[in-house]
């Protein structure tokens, strides 16, 4: 579904991504972790062509987004929902209008249909009673959920999450994790999550990859990831008190807090 082919990105003279090759399969939750400034968000921005690789190619669903222009790029972008760190809601619009924006601007549908779909979307993220509020009247967690409602309103095939749980308390963070897991399970959406939050990553991911000095340490399942011996991965895990026997087995109960249909893993 998403493929990086020998992607290198140089920003300000510094190599942020170094000859990265990566494949993300349809329907999986793929988590990218790494320390601050390691290039996680840069990786996400390449997928939606907010950035263009210095070298290499990025493909999404067969479209080379790194070279796409005009209608082709628009078509590729229509596959995506993108949750930004701060939600990126437009401040002068209510939550409802923010969520309705992609429909009103891009799709020729009646206002009644817009209202129906916005309410569905808001309900999915638990904000059905907060549509009238403005972004500065709601909490950070609610802003992220509103951003997520906007990201899923046009029924995307892929959702990219940029630090979905950063700055949130642990309970809200787990609620967001559960939401990501639920959307993936209910709508069959491919999810790419960029996070520092290793606990959340272990709970919801199908595969986890760590970005170290511009390169991905071999992507692996959460169970294998927490047993990794790579020194940088180990240091990251140890800093978050995740022992090799870890918490991968506990994911089901934790995720089930906010999920209607907890996934079963092999």
């Amino acid at each position, binding site marked *: 579904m998403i493929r990086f082919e020998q992607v290198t990105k140089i920003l300000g003279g510094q190599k942020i991504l170094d000859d990265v090759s990566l494949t993300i399969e349809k329907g999986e939750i793929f988590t990218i972790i790494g320390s601050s400034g390691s290039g996680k968000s840069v990786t996400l921005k390449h997928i939606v062509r907010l950035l263009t690789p210095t070298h290499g190619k990025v493909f999404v669903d067969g479209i080379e987004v790194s070279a796409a222009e005009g209608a082709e790029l628009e078509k590729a972008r229509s596959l995506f929902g993108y949750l930004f760190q701060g939600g990126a809601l437009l401040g002068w619009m209510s939550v409802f209008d923010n969520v309705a924006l992609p429909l*009103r601007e*891009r799709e020729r549908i009646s206002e009644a249909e817009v209202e129906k779909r916005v309410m569905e979307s808001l309900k999915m993220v638990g904000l059905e009673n907060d549509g009238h509020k403005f972004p500065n009247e709601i909490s950070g967690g609610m802003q992220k959920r509103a951003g997520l409602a906007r990201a899923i309103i046009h029924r995307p095939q892929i959702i990219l999450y940029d630090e979905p749980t950063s700055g949130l308390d642990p309970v809200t963070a787990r609620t967001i994790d559960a939401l990501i897991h639920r959307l993936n399970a209910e709508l069959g959406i491919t999810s790419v999550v960029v996070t520092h939050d290793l606990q959340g990553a272990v709970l919801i991911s199908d595969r986890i990859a760590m970005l170290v000095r511009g390169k991905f340490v071999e992507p692996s399942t959460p169970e294998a990831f927490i047993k990794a011996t790579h020194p940088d991965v180990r240091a990251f895990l140890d800093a978050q008190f995740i022992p090799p026997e870890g918490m991968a087995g506990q994911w089901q109960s934790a995720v089930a807090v906010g999920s209607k249909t907890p996934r079963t893993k092999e």
Partner: protein
Amino acid sequence: MRFTRECLYADCEETSLYQLIQQLFSIVGRGTLLTVEAILLFPYQVVNHRARKEFLRQAYVVGIKSLPVVTLVGLFIGMVLALQVGLEMRRFNQEYYIGAGVMISSLREMGAFMTGLILSACVGSSMAAQIGTMTVNDEIAALEIMSINPVRYLVAPRLAAMMVMSPLLAFYSCVLSVIGGGIVAKTQLSVPFMTYMKIAVDSADRYDLFVGLLKALIFGVLITGISCLEGLRTTQGAVGVGRATRQAVVVSFLMVLVVGYMVTRMFYTL
């Protein structure tokens, strides 16, 4: 070619003179592309009812919200002009012709010039700050990902509103300058108000009015183009927004001066 916003994440932190010149041309080129693309998107502003609403909202922000400042500045510019020139003219017993002086200078230069400066300071700065804040908060990137062209959604209605309101404000400021001059002529120079007005109206020339309004239109385009570009180029959070706002105002001021002279030179030859 379309305007692209990748400069926001530009790979350039160049230092050599050649690269700085290259950057300068790149910025001018991007500004031109941005403005041209916004103008080409004007038909959408007419066809789409939401875009029309946004245009009206921007016209209100540009026009109505600037009215108090334009009113005061227009009045006082006319009063100062009448006083300064009138005192000199009185030495030659020509103070009755002060109306002509105020009218011509307002129509040709002061109306458009003062409106340009006011719009740079009030409207241009707010455009740069608003779009800059949206940029650093990823709101512009969010629009791009939703396939909503930020130029169509944000720049085009602002540009259209400025192109309509700037000449109107310039004309309004001319009218107030003449009235302000009349008040000073009557109270300080003892010139009857009706005599002042008759001479002022007689000396008004359609050509001067046309050049003045054209200047105001060009200033409107320049201020919007510069301010929106600075907003879209903003990086580095709150500091960046401050820098973009200052840059937008300074560059707009300078362009109003330089381009104002160039247009005057084009239309008035010795």
